[in-house]
């Protein structure tokens, strides 16, 4: 039997039992609109690309990383100096996390402005907000793992913030820290979050998010002529996927180049008893929140500035989660105001981040 016949019969054996031809047919039938918004549709798969890179490099790092108070910093130092090309793998993991979070923000803002969350896609938006929170949690928990002086201080500050939330705040801080204070238990707990809990949660919600996108199809711009748009659409497979591959290749090239020429360093091992080092800062994606907390005065009326700031951020977060339900008249003034809010948020975040950096 020649090779081609062998492949075909093997494929047929699996097809009879798995039925994946249905998936292939669906992907061929799935259409992607071609209009001025199409460029933003590349952000979704870019997030997935960086996530896959994180999983692969993360698993590799976990081969040598030891998540205990005594060994964490030493094991990262070993990865960077003894293990062949360990510093490259660590650098890619470090940079890919920043790239992933940056692309998540771009993805979110583009959906906000284009209003892709209009009915029936409200749940897609809401699962997306969960994905944003999980991604930021990945960044926050991963930052502690090298256990150097900067990351310890950043975690102390970061895990103190939920304390201001009414009712559940103190409990939440204790849950994150594994006690009252940041200790070796916090490190092991964060490691468990970072490699077990968060990946499971993320994969589950990505499943729902991607399913909803396939089921509901790609959205069209506000006020678009449906007939005209349908005529311009391209099949997802293979036309759009080839275009996505170009984007992936470019992102991959930029990531590897940056990782190879700007690898992260490792500070000296964290000392639980030492005073906070100067100039502690969270990662860049938290800077705008960090600066917001800083500008609130220590006391406003009867509440502490911190509590009010956290409360406001929380309220805004909840409103943000229910955004599709608020934006029920997207074409009218209300809708335009909500779009303007997106631009206002961008300006606010950039200004706060820059301010935080130059201080």
């Amino acid at each position, binding site marked *: 039997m020649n090779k081609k016949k062998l492949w075909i019969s093997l494929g047929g054996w699996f097809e009879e039992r798995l039925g994946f031809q249905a998936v292939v047919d669906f992907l061929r039938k799935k259409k992607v609109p071609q209009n001025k918004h199409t460029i933003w549709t590349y952000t979704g798969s870019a997030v997935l690309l960086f996530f896959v890179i994180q999983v692969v490099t993360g698993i590799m790092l976990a081969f040598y990383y030891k998540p205990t108070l005594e060994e964490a910093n030493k094991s990262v130092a070993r990865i960077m*100096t003894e293990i062949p090309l360990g510093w490259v793998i660590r650098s890619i993991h470090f940079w890919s996390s920043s790239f992933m979070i940056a692309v998540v923000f771009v993805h979110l803002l583009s959906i906000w402005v284009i209003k892709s969350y209009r009915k029936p896609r409200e749940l897609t938006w809401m699962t997306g907000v969960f994905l944003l929170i999980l991604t930021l949690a990945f960044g926050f928990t991963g930052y502690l793992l090298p256990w150097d002086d900067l990351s310890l201080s950043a975690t102390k500050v970061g895990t103190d913030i939920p304390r201001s939330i009414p009712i559940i705040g103190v409990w939440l801080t204790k849950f994150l820290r594994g006690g009252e204070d940041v200790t070796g238990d916090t490190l092991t707990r964060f490691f468990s979050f970072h490699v077990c809990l968060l990946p499971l949660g993320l994969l589950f919600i990505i499943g729902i998010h991607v399913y909803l996108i396939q089921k509901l199809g790609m959205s069209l711009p506000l006020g678009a002529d449906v007939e005209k748009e349908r005529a311009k659409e391209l099949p997802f497979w293979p036309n759009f996927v080839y275009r996505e591959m170009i984007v992936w290749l470019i992102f991959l090239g930029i990531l590897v180049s940056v990782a190879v020429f700007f690898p992260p360093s490792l500070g000296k091992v964290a000392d639980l008893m030492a005073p906070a080092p100067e100039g502690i800062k969270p990662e860049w994606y938290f800077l705008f929140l960090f600066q917001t907390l800083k500008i609130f005065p220590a006391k406003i009326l009867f509440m502490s500035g911190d509590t009010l700031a956290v409360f406001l951020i929380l309220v805004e977060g909840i409103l943000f989660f229910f955004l599709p339900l608020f934006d029920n008249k997207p074409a009218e003034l209300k809708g335009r105001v909500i779009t303007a809010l997106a631009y206002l948020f961008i300006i606010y975040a950039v200004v706060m981040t820059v301010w935080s950096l130059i201080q």
Partner: protein
Amino acid sequence: MKMKGTKNSNKYLILGLLALWGINFIFLTYGFSQTTSSQEKIEQSLAQTKPEKIIPSPQNIKESTAIYVFVGWMWASIFILIYFLKLKIKESDRLFKLKFFSENK
């Protein structure tokens, strides 16, 4: 009109692929062989001092060159692959316009 490749066609394809792999292999062995020689040097320097901060960097001129070679090769490959992808995009768009894959023609 369907064109069928002859038996020889597979041979040339395989030879071509082997040549491509060969070029890549040369780059790999040259490039990454540079990094392993520096392991002992790093260990010695680490044992002597306990640095405040560990800043990773290539240890010698060979390793720095290897990094540039790798990054250059990677970008060259990326541009070539993007060129191929553009050809494939042109072709698949053309086929779609001709309704090559649709059920009712």
